[in-house]
């Protein structure tokens, strides 16, 4: 568990981060979202003390970070940034093994760990270990950057706009991968983004920052249905709100008995995808399957009522 307690950073008399407190539960993703200049990156960088707080403290599993030597603290915390920041003169394997090497792991242990991570990110070690960053695609470079941040099994992974430099298609894939890997490893992630869509997709919790202050902190559904301020409402985006809401729910949640015509959809798909399939193929209902076996259907009517239902909470 990471506790950020009343933390403030003042630059030239103006607070960049103003008395922010929040708690990040272990094995969850918290996405901090805000416009540029909102203080979200400063907040993130105060966690591993790349920026020293003016006041307040951060505790990792109850232990205040201010008491630890900076570099020892940073080696316990993964750090992945926009534009990956890989070392161009080191191979992929050496890049990923950077923190374990700083921690003095022995060679065999590093070798095994690097292979494990490459496998996890679907990059065959035999093919990728000895390549240089310049020989990888943008998506591969980004994956190596995240693998490097995870190499020493850190207590916490900090990510600053990790997908910012990727094109939309690769970004979606990277987000899916991150979600899968986070669930597999049970990592605790604090992620900064300017993209509300990304925050909603990835975050178990979303924290919205505006002008140095934390204006709302809650589940994606809470943020969408109950924006605390005008600013949050604007970030969530008026027109897209029902669609964003639907994207948080899976088909299995409104599954009903019965059959339907045409191509089936997986029960793990989001209601947004189901809606899209209905509209595109002109159907009022779509069959749902689990592991390829039909288990029921989802209707346009049910999707519609679900979008309405949460939209106007009583």
């Amino acid at each position, binding site marked *: 568990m990471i506790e950020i307690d009343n933390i403030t950073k003042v630059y030239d008399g103006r607070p960049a981060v103003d008395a922010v407190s929040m708690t990040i539960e272990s094995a969850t993703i918290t996405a901090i979202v805000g416009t540029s200049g909102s203080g979200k990156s400063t907040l993130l960088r105060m966690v*591993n003390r*790349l920026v020293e707080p003016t006041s307040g403290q951060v505790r990792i599993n109850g232990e205040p970070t201010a008491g630890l030597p*900076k*570099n*020892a*603290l*940073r*080696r316990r915390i993964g*750090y992945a*940034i*926009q*534009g*990956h*920041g*890989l*070392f*161009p*003169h080191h191979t992929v394997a050496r890049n990923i093994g*950077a*923190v374990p090497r*700083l921690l003095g792991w022995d060679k065999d242990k590093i070798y095994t760990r690097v292979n494990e991570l490459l496998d996890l990110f679907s990059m065959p070690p035999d093919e990728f270990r000895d390549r*240089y*960053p*310049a*020989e990888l695609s943008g998506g591969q470079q980004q994956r190596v*950057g995240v693998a*490097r*941040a995870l190499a020493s099994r850190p207590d916490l992974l*900090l990510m600053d706009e990790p997908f910012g430099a990727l094109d939309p298609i690769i970004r979606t894939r990277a987000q899916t991968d991150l979600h899968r890997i986070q669930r597999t490893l049970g990592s605790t992630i604090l992620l900064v983004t300017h993209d509300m869509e990304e925050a909603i997709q990835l975050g178990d919790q979303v924290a919205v920052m505006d002008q140095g202050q934390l204006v709302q902190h809650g589940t994606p559904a809470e943020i969408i249905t109950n924006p605390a301020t005008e600013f949050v409402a604007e970030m969530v985006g008026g027109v897209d709100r029902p669609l964003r809401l639907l994207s948080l729910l899976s088909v299995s949640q409104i599954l009903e008995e019965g059959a339907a015509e045409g191509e089936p959809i997986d029960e793990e798909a989001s209601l947004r995808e189901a809606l899209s399939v209905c509209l595109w193929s002109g159907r009022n209902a779509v069959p749902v399957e689990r592991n390829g076996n039909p288990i029921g259907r989802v209707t346009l009517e049910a999707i519609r009522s679900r979008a309405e239902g949460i939209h106007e909470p009583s």
Partner: protein
Amino acid sequence: MPNRIKSIVSGPGLFFTGLGLVALYAPFMTLAANRIVAGEGVPVWDVAGPEAVIPGFAGLLAGLALGLPAAWQVLRLTGAMIGIAALIWLLMEGSTSLLEGAGTYARVSLGSGFWCLLAILLLLAADALSSLSPGPKMRGALLAVAIVVSAMVLWSGVLTDLSIFREYASRQDAFFNAAWRHLGLAFGSLVVAAAIGFPLGVYCHRNKSLRSAVLPVLSFLQTIPSLAMFGIMIPLLAWVSSAIPGARELGVVGIGFLPAFLALVIYSLLPVVANTVAGLEATPIVTLDAARGMGMTRHQRLIQIQLPLGLPVMLAGLRIVLVQNIGLAVIAGLIGGGGFGTFVFQGLNQTATDLILLGALPTVILALISAITMDILVELARPNKMRHG
């Protein structure tokens, strides 16, 4: 049609070949009654009998003609080599035949035609080589071959009749002393400048106010004319030698090796420090941020990230220093610092052109070899794969 011709005939080749044909009319060698008086020019077809001139002349023409085709670079390179071999053959035959019956003190020297043809053939070779763009290892091998072949020609004694080799023969010991002294001045000052400049560069990189104090001072020192700099050293060191007890015993005196050495070190500091700062700043900001964020100490960031990434730029600084110092060390001859400058200034005093050349030519060749070697090192220092990526 012109386009087709263009693609068959190399533009630079056509230019060089044209120049080469004109240069054939310039005096190839000069014959003088002694080492001081101005010589009389001898055209290339008169340097020896037809049995020697015809093959030599044919070789030159062939070398120039082979420079023309645009496509076959290896052929053009071979042509340039044939041309240079023909030059040496003509010198060899010409010096023997011209000196025959010309008197004991007579001297044959290299004429303007020879120098022009040599320059043109070397440019042709360089043009062909740059089109072939060999890798750093290949360039190193070619340089080694060129040095070995040149050394073999010089040591074989075929050119001993030339005036410049007469000058050499009469001061062999002095020549090697001067060579060692010259190398000592150029490389020694490089080592000392690097030993001071690299740490100073690192501190300047870390401390902006130190940088804004140090770099302007070094730039100012760089603008002092070399003669003045060597001049300043004389009274300065003379004062140190008399004011500080024991300094004279340590070899601190106003003239000789030390003042020249110090002047060269001072000139070397700006390129070393400025390129060290630039090299350390070459690391992308995100890379440094990542290194800091993963818990690398400042020392680890310097050694593992900034130095390897900045090495090519830092070596480029050393290259500037080395070539600059090899040239500047000639001036050291003026204040008794030794080196090839000694011959240059002796030659100037005696108006003996070939003695000047005995000092100048080795300096130029040394600078060239150093420049090529350093370029190869700079390229090898580039991090793997970044060369293409």
